[in-house]
């Protein structure tokens, strides 16, 4: 009987010890790592995108106000850095920044990819400006994890342009590459051929692959006006558009095509005849040319940012330029 009591007491004590001591705080939880590989998250939240854009616009505004382009590189890169630096340089002479440099604060759409590597690209489409200029397509890039997003390019969308549709920011789009297949031509080819079309106009062998657009029409009319003046001087002009190698951003749309934004450079060489001097053709060139000594030959270098939609192969559609921006960045007498 005593043994039984002893056993019972032992059992009670053991129960008390194990249960009460072990149960003080409950079982320590173990982290269950969320499976991030299966679901790709967007690189940025919309709030982050807005914050980044605001930072860029602040840097832009500061540079515009100070007419000092030195601080632009912190938030600008690529063709946009060249264009806006030129615009500030022009503004120093003309007194005011180009109205094309205006970037609205609000956006109508942003396209955020889910790609995990670097560089990363984000497209944002702003509202129209206060003076009813067309919407801007902003291209923000982040070259590495330790760098911040910068404004790489701005394309002023053509009137009546319809952009392809993209995945909403909560889901995230996918970045493309310059050599994306499955399209009627790779983005890289599209940019090179478009440069050829701009150079040669309708006589280009690729003219049929590209829909007519505002940029081509404007350039054709400008060239024609300049040609009239040059012809009267018995001079010549030559425009050469070339795609800037590597300066291309691609985002895959949910329609299957790619929205490509690329830099195209124009070298515009004008030669005056009959011993005359070749002078800048417009205020911007004039501002950049300054007081340099004019010669018979003048070469103006323009930077174009062209946005174009490259549709899927077998879609029966043409590559369509949807927006562009340009600025003369250098004028020099030769």
């Amino acid at each position, binding site marked *: 009987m005593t043994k039984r009591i002893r056993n019972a007491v032992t059992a009670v004590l053991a129960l008390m010890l194990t249960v009460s001591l072990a149960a003080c705080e*409950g079982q*320590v939880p173990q*982290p*269950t790592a969320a499976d991030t590989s299966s679901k790709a998250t967007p690189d940025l939240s919309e709030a*982050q995108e807005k914050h*980044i854009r605001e930072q860029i616009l602040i840097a832009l505004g500061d540079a515009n106000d100070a007419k000092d382009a030195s601080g632009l590189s912190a938030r600008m890169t690529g063709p946009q850095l060249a264009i806006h630096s030129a615009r500030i340089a022009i503004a120093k002479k003309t007194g005011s920044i180009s109205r094309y440099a205006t970037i609205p604060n609000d956006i109508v759409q942003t396209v955020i990819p889910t790609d995990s590597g670097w560089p990363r690209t984000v497209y944002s489409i702003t509202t129209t400006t206060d003076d009813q200029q067309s919407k801007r397509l902003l291209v923000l890039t982040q070259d590495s994890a330790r760098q*911040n997003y910068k404004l790489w390019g701005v394309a002023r969308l053509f009137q009546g342009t319809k952009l392809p549709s993209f995945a909403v920011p909560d889901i995230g789009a996918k970045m493309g590459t310059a050599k994306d297949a499955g399209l009627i031509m790779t983005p890289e080819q599209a940019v090179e051929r478009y440069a050829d079309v701009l150079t040669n106009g309708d006589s280009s062998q690729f003219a049929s692959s590209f829909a007519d657009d505002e940029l081509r029409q404007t350039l054709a009319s400008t060239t024609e006006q300049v040609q009239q003046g040059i012809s009267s001087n018995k001079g010549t002009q030559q425009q050469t558009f070339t795609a800037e190698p590597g300066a291309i951003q691609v985002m895959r749309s949910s329609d299957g095509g790619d929205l490509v934004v690329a830099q195209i450079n124009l070298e515009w060489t004008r030669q005056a005849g009959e011993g005359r001097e070749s002078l800048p053709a417009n205020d911007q060139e004039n501002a950049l040319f300054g007081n340099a000594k004019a010669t018979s030959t003048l070469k103006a270098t323009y930077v174009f940012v062209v946005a174009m939609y490259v549709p899927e192969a077998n879609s029966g559609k043409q590559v369509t330029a949807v927006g562009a921006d340009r600025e003369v960045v250098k004028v020099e007498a030769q």
Partner: protein
Amino acid sequence: MSPSRRAWIMRGLVTPIFGLLAVTCIVLGLFNATVWKPSSEITATGTVNGVRYIATDPGVLPLVDDASTLTVTTSGGSDVCVALGSSKDVNGWINGESYARVTGLSDWTTLSTEVSSAKQSASADDQSQDVAFRDSDMWTHVVCGSGKATLKTTVSDTSDSIALVDLGESGQATVSLHWVRETLPDFAMPFYFAGGLLALMAVLTASLFAMPPHKRRKRVIESRLVQEEVTVAQAISGSLARVMPSRRPRGSRRRHAGGRSRSDMDETAIVTSGGSHDDVAQPTIIDPSSRNLVADQAARNEQAERAEQSDVQVPDVARADGGSSHDRFAPAAQPASALRFDVDVATDDRTAADEPAADTTVTAAAEPDREPSSGPVAGPVTDTTDEPVAEPRGAHARVAQSTNEEPPVVQPSLPRRRRHRASGSGHAADEANNEVTSVISSEELQAYFARLAQETTGSDADGEKEERQ
């Protein structure tokens, strides 16, 4: 074990043990609900040495609760920043650097950490464009401080947000994570429950289980006495019904007597006639599937007509039926069984022991043996009981009972059976019956028998069917 000894053990030993355990459990439950109650505030701390960056593993921030507070304290007092970003951004930032991982809780107050060495040297890219840790666009939240930084976060389980700490330079730092638990584990309730059960056991051991087993059993039996008696009686009668083919079912089953095929009736006639030849207990084989309700009805009608039209004929036929081949007279044989049934019903309150005695009289072979057992029962009653039992198989006896007009018919058949039974009391019963029936007219009697015959036919069939089952 004697009852007193059992009670002593139960009440003196087991009950106190249960009671003690119950009190212990309830006290433990109270402790768990008060002083040992799990703290809602959890703070876990870990120390990191020799790295610049500290990253939490995915799932560590919302380990205890979605809302957490991460505090980092450096020993040197240098600037320290804590940022919250997606794991891929954090991995991009610390790519090529050694860093410490906070992998979880080793216990409730200690964070487990792990140093992860750089797998590759930092990229040799142009770093002139790199931004300061606190200025990176990738962080959703960033907090910096001198020597100490505290980041309050709300991260859901499904989010892949993790925290990254930049100590500015390699050094020693203390990382502490603080959560406030919204739902605390309830350890008191199981103790209360166990305590309740143990208290119940204590009460039971002190009362029910302390009782001697036979007392408990008796009480249970007494409480079920009435029901058991009925059950036993039913069981006995049921088994007897199986053993004794001649046993008649209860009168309440008559209404189910509807369907009997002509062949059934043939068999009844055969058996009936057989009864007169002292092999009454021969089992009859009836195929229920061969029943024809239409034929049954026709037979019944025919029988009814017969009963009404030729009262006087019945005895004659019965007499001729001694050869057993006339199935037509089987229905005529039924009235007797019906009469018997009335007697049966009247004597329904016989004891179970009485029944076998009455039944066995039918079986020729068993008759002599069983005879004495029926003896104890009152003479006349036994006789009336026995006789009907024997009767169903014998049309003659039935008719003899029912009609005074045919004494000659009655006389040969009855004595034949009585001879075997070696009992003279049957005659007295017959006489008594005759006296009773003589009060009413023979026509009324015939009609009455005819009606009963219809019902009894069914009850016969029912009884037989039951027997075959």
